[in-house]
């Protein structure tokens, strides 16, 4: 049986979420930038909330 070599992308956006958190904590940018990052975090959490709390 052949084995695929393609890396499977996780569907729950955890890695993106953690990256955004790191960006938020590291950012020295403007308030607008922080708001943009926080909005993106909130959006991902909301879309995947049931998956996160049930996994």
């Amino acid at each position, binding site marked *: 049986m052949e084995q695929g070599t393609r890396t499977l992308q996780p569907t729950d956006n955890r890695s993106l*979420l*953690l990256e955004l958190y790191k960006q938020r904590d590291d950012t020295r940018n403007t308030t607008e930038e922080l708001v943009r990052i*926080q909005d993106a975090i*909130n959006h991902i*959490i*909301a879309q995947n*909330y049931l998956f*996160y*709390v049930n*996994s």
Partner: protein
Amino acid sequence: MDHFRLMEVDHDMQSRIGQLLISHPNFPLQSPFARSLIYIYQDDSVNGTVGAVLNKPSRTSVSSLCEQNGLMFADTQPMMYMGGPVNTGALLLLHTDEWSSINTANAGGKLRISSDNHMFHKISQGNQPVYWRAFFGFATWQPGQLQTEMNSKMWLTADADESIIFNYSGDKQWNKALELCSQQTIDHFF
């Protein structure tokens, strides 16, 4: 019969008392619960779930309500909030636990809920809780109804934070709760 019903309460059910219920960002904007933040103060398998919508101020100030009832409350800043569509004639006070009135019950954590004729009399005399918010009415769910709505992605939850409950209002309060939910989700599940 009431006794029998009380015996049926499922104490193993995971209670949501003391939690914030945050309407999902995708909640239809025409719904009265869009961008709502609710504090759950009663939740069991027999009586269902009861909470107060925290972030929808009414046009009535506490001082004008007191005035209508023959009381003098000098501070014109605090507003009455629309706690929900059920029994909108009922007056509720969500407050910190160092204070009580005639009819005060535990509301989870360090919060209490009062509903009686005496509470505004006390407040108008300067005898008031450290933190409080007053409501017309409340919101209710039949047993199992809230879980069904949560499974339909209508609500997010977060452990309550007194600062968010008492220091904010309107959409800003909902946004703050959403941020809290995000932070707690990361902390708990990652």
